[in-house]
Each structure stands twice: as C-alpha cells, then as structure tokens.
C-alpha cells in the first residue's frame, strides 16, 4: 500500500532545505529579482547542489546521484514552492524522468553536482498524452522549429527535444539554438521560446521508448508539481493565519470573526487533502506504480486549484496590504495560477481521468 506519510529522513530533508532557503532565498530576495532581471537564481541552485546535494536525488548512484527517489524530490519541491524559489528544480526532475525512461541515466551525472541542467523541451502547459512535436528533423541530424513557453530552460545546459521520430539531445549553447525569455505571469519561473535553426542534435531514443519516456516525464511533472503546489498553499495558509491573529479591527483580531475563521478552516481542509493527494502521486511515481497516470491527473485536477484558492484567500484576507507589490502574496498568486495550467489544467486532467476511470462523456447528439 502506498505510504502517504513523510518518513523521518524525509522530514530531515525538509528541515535542511527549509533552513537553506530561509538563509539564502527569503521572499525579499525573490521579490527584488522579480523587479530586476527575473533570471533564475543559479547561486541558490549551486547551494542546493553543493550544500545539500539535492539536485541529483533521483539520479541513480552509478551515475553520481543520491539514488534516493521521487518521494524525496517531491519533499524538496514542497519547500521550493513554499519559498517560490526561482530555481529550475521541477524542470530538471521532469528531464530526469525522461532520461531514466529511455535508459540514458548516464547523461545525468553533471546534474547531480548541479551542472548542466537538463530540460524537456515542451511547452509548460503540455498535458500528458498530447503529442505536439513542432520540431522537424533533417539529415545530420539537425533540428528546426520553435517551441513556445518552455519552463526552466533558460538556465539549462542540455535540451531534450521530442520530435516525430524520437527524442533528441541538443546542447543549449549549440549553434542554431536561440532562447528568448518570455515576460511571464510567474516571474519566479520565467518561460522562454526556443528556436532551433538547423541545430545539431543527437538522437537518444526512438519509437515507443521515446514516446513513453516523454509521456511519462510529463506525467511525472503533473505528479511532482502537486507537491510544489502544496508548499505554495501551505505558505499562503500559514502566512494568512499569522496575519489575522495580529491584525485588529473593531477592537478584535480579525481572525476571531467567524467569516474569516470558516474560510481558513475550509482552506485548511483543502490543503490537508491536497497533501494526501500529492503524497500519493509522489509515492506512485517513486515506486513505478501502474496507478501513476491516474495519480498524476488526480493531483493536477485537485492540487492546482487548491493552491490558487489558497493564494486568492491570502490576498483577500490580508486586505489592502495583500494587494500591494511590496507584500509577497502576489508572488504566490502568480506562481499558483501559472502552476494550475502547467502540465495540463484541472479541466484537462479531469478529461484524462474520465478515460482512466471509465466515466465517459455523453455521446454527441
């Protein structure tokens, strides 16, 4: 049976990641980056790799990784979500799943030491099972085409590019590769449009192996993103609770009003449930459970909405201050709303679930 709890070593991992983020990526620093160049925080990334060794958690030991698994990756993502940290951890985890899926864990060695971040070149909004291969292959092989709205690619060194006849790797600094940053709703995870113009590539998988590696990686993205969303939602809940306890109006803490309490109680219920759903998805992914596609779709049908609700409640219950640029609530709102679309919206995943659990749509009239 799936283990939905956190083991002691997972709790210890959480503590160390949280402590590092508190020291090196407080929200004030994240906010100042949003006002600055909006780039990924690769100094923080180097600390995650160097101090904690968490960039290679899911990389097998024979390739220099920690040989842990996706349950641990999910715990790290929860903390990164809680801090809206601008690092390409989710993208690297998805690419890790893709490379393991086609037996090329050997390409992950550099990731384990924080170098040469791999990323799967698909639009961030891609949902599992939707084939979209805008990149054409010509002899060489060389790739040409444009992939729009890719997350975590700007700091990447290794691009994994799905094409009709297989999965290719392209060096990010190869000739013919251009990445143009997108002014993104979530400035803590800046997307980019990638143009390949006769870019030299290497094919690492073909046929069904390549196809399922890509699909499984997108499913992994849906499953893992849920933990990040739980982290976002938990921060919003905790921060709001702290605020309404000390904010006085009408001579009382606003948190003593039933309208406020009940809204936060409902949010707590949702976050509690989202955590169980996210743990289930992470455990399925970690153990190779055949229920993983269902768990991933369930995760995005549920947890994305919870994170958005949490961020919206956070803004609302902070009142005026929650609507300002200087307060961090908007960072979480933008992260939550973007993440709710990433790897497929709730609606898209409900449609996938309809197929997975045999609840078919009505026949067209």
């Amino acid at each position, binding site marked *: 049976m*799936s*283990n*939905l*709890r956190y083991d002691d070593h997972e709790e210890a991992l959480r503590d160390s990641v949280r402590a590092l983020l508190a020291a090196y990526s407080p929200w004030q620093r994240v906010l100042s980056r949003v006002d600055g160049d909006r780039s990924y925080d690769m100094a923080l990334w180097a600390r995650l790799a160097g101090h904690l060794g968490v960039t290679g958690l899911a990389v097998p030991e024979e390739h220099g990784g920690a040989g842990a698994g996706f349950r641990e990756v999910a715990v790290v993502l929860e903390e990164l979500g809680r801090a809206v940290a601008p690092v390409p951890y989710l993208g690297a985890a998805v690419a890790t799943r893709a490379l393991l899926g086609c037996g090329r864990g050997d390409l992950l060695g550099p990731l384990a030491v924080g170098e040469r971040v791999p990323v799967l070149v698909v639009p961030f909004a891609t949902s599992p099972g939707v084939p979209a291969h805008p990149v054409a292959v010509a002899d060489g092989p060389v790739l040409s085409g444009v992939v729009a709205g890719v997350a975590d690619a700007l700091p990447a060194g290794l691009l994994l590019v799905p094409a009709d006849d297989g999965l290719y790797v392209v060096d990010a600094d190869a000739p013919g590769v251009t990445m143009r940053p997108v002014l993104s709703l979530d400035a803590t995870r800046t997307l980019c449009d990638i143009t390949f113009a006769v870019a030299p590539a290497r094919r690492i998988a073909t046929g069904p192996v390549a196809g399922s590696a890509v699909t499984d990686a997108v499913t992994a993205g849906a499953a893992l993103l849920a933990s990040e969303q739980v982290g976002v939602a938990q921060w919003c809940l905790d921060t709001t*609770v702290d605020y*309404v*306890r000390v904010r006085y109006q009408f001579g*009382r*803490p606003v*948190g*003593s*009003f*039933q309208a*406020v*309490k*009940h809204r*936060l*109680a*409902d949010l*707590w*219920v949702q976050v*509690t*449930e*989202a*955590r*169980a*759903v996210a*743990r*289930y998805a992470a455990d399925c992914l970690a153990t190779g459970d055949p229920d993983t596609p269902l768990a991933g779709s*369930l995760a995005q*049908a*549920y947890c994305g909405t919870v994170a958005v609700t949490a961020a919206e409640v956070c803004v609302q219950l902070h009142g005026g201050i929650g609507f300002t640029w200087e307060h961090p609530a908007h960072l979480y709102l933008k992260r939550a709303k973007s993440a709710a679309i990433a790897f497929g919206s709730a609606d898209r995943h*409900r*449609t996938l*679930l*309809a197929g997975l*659990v*045999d*609840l*078919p*749509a*009505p*026949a067209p009239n």
Partner: protein
Amino acid sequence: MSDDAAAEMLRGRVAAFLDRHDPAGDRTAFLRARFDAGLAWVHHPVGLGGLDAPRRLQPLVDAEFARVGAPDNRPRRNSIGLGMAAPTLLRHGTPTQRARWLRPLWTGEEIWCQLFSEPGAGSDLAGLTTRAVRDGTDWIVDGQKVWTSMAHRARWAILLTRTDPVAPKHRGITFFVCDMTAPGVQVRPLRQLTGEAEFNEVFLTDVRLPDSLRVGAVGDGWRVARTTLMHERVAIGGRPLPREGGMIGRLAQTWRDRPELRSAGLHHEVLQSWVRAEAARLTALRLRQQLLAGDPGPESSAVKLSFAALAQRISGIEVELLGGEGLRHDDWTMHRPEEPDLLGRTATYRYLRARGNSIEGGTSEILRTIIAERVLGLPAEPRVDR
C-alpha cells in the same frame, strides 16, 4: 518489543487460541474467550481485553481471525459502545467499572448508547440541563435527551448531567453510566425526515443511579466527555475505503450503466465529485496511517467535513442525473434500522439521509470553528456564557 516481534507474538497467540477454541462453536463463548486471551483490543492492558501491544497491530489480529471465518463482535451494531464508551471507560473508569463493562461491551452482549444531546443543547452541548441530584449514596436524574441511536436496544448509556447548576457551565457537569433498565427511563422513537427512526428521544424521570455508576469526579464530566467526542469524529469519518467505496461508487455506476442519462454539465459534476471523493479517501487513508504509526493528526476533522459535503453533493447529483426516475421514492413507512444505511436504498433516500451528515457528530459549522481555533490557533469569538 519491536513491531516485528510484537506481530510475531500476536500471530502466535492467535494460533494458540484457535487450537483451543473452535471458531464454529458457540459464538458468545468464543468471543468471551477471545477477550480473556487479550486478543480483543490488543492495545488494552492485560485483563481488559488486551496485551499492551501496539494499537496498529489490531488489524493484523482481526485479519487472522477473519481468515479462519471466526465470528466477529458485529462492531456496527454497537458502534457507540466500541467507538466511544469503551475508550472513555478505559481512560476514566475505575478498575471495577472497567472490569464490569468492557467485556460484555466488546462481545456485543451489552449494547451501549449515548445520552448527551438535549432539545436545548445541541452544538452547545455544555448547555445541557438534565439534572442529577444526590440522594444519599444515589443520584436522582431528571431530564430529556435526544438523537439517541440504539437506545431501544441498549443495556447501558453514557450520560451527561448537570450536578451543579451554579458553577460555570463547563464545570457543573458530571458523567455517568445510565442503566437503561432502571425505572423512569422511557425511550420513544424519533422519526426523521427520511420517514424512519434511527434515533430516539429518551425521557429520564426520577431515575435512581447508584454513585458507583459515576465516571470521573463530580463536576469533571466535561473533561471526560471530551475523550468520548474526540473518538466520535474518528468513528464517523475515519474508515478506510477502497476507491469508489463510498457514495461516489453509486453515482459512478449509474453513470456507467445509463448512457442515455448523461449530459455535458453533469459529466463535469460527476468528474469533479470523483476527484474530491478520491482526495478525501486518500486523506482518510493518510490519517489512518498516521494513527497506526502512533502519530495522530487533526485530519479527522477534515475527513468528517469533506465526508458530509461530498455525500450531500454526490447524492444530489445522482437524483438530478436520474431525472424523472429521481422523483420516485421507495418507502416512507417508519422503520427502526439496526444501523444507519448511508449507501443503501434509492438515490432519493441517500440524498435525504445525507442531510444528517453535516449535523450529527458535530455540525459542519461547529467543526469549522473547532478547526480554526484548535488547529489553526485563531482567537475565539467573544462569548457571553463563560
């Protein structure tokens, strides 16, 4: 003792027990012997149905007995006794009380009910007015209780009374066990909006209870009752279910079996409910894993709130999905069901019965306040009654 060693020990005890006791023999004798062997509640002390073993190993013992087809104690027939009275007696009862009551309670020879709610004390339970007045070594009890399931079958009841009308309301309460056969105890069925009567009203008129039936100190009944109520929430919402094991399974089956009823709008509703139901199921599973690991969280309140909301929503969708058929009900006559049947009968019945889910065992409004104050630590509203 490690878990593995304890599990091995328990397996050995069950095997030895089954060597000496025939599961196909007399049911009551078998259950009594199982209690005496410490295999009833393994976490209880020796002599009180247990072996001081970790509570999380109970499912293992139950499974070993189920495997050989041994009779169980029909736990659903005595859910108040097993779920609420037993943990309260274990924690607050005297040695004499525990020795007298726990064995026949566990075997199902004596059914228990709960005399807590009153017409004027529902959510505000501590406002109860049923009085107990000392008379020598006895107490004389007068008052009216309501929403008492199984009162018409019960041998004993756990009872809250006011023994000090002057003290602040939470401090003037005393907890008793009430002898349901005592003169002056009158049980009347209380018919509910489904037409049946799962519950009763209980009238207590000059009921004489010996002081030996008191549980906990005089005036300390509210603290004792909190043990009971804590277990009530777990009892109502914490059962582990397989996927689609609850109300959602009925709706999903109707959707699959009846393609002609489908519409795009209801498809959306069905899928949303399926997702919410599965999320709630996993939450209950996680809560259970935490409880079994000796790490109980406050999740039981979440489970209860979601269970009620989902049951109501899903049964409502099902009636709507059935359209004209959803207008036909099966039975309005008054029955006295042995146990609530939340998933049975027609969609209309399930829809109506589900209205109770957000009222019984703590209204959803009260639960939200409890979550806000006890889990989230938000300040209480100003009160005029303390």
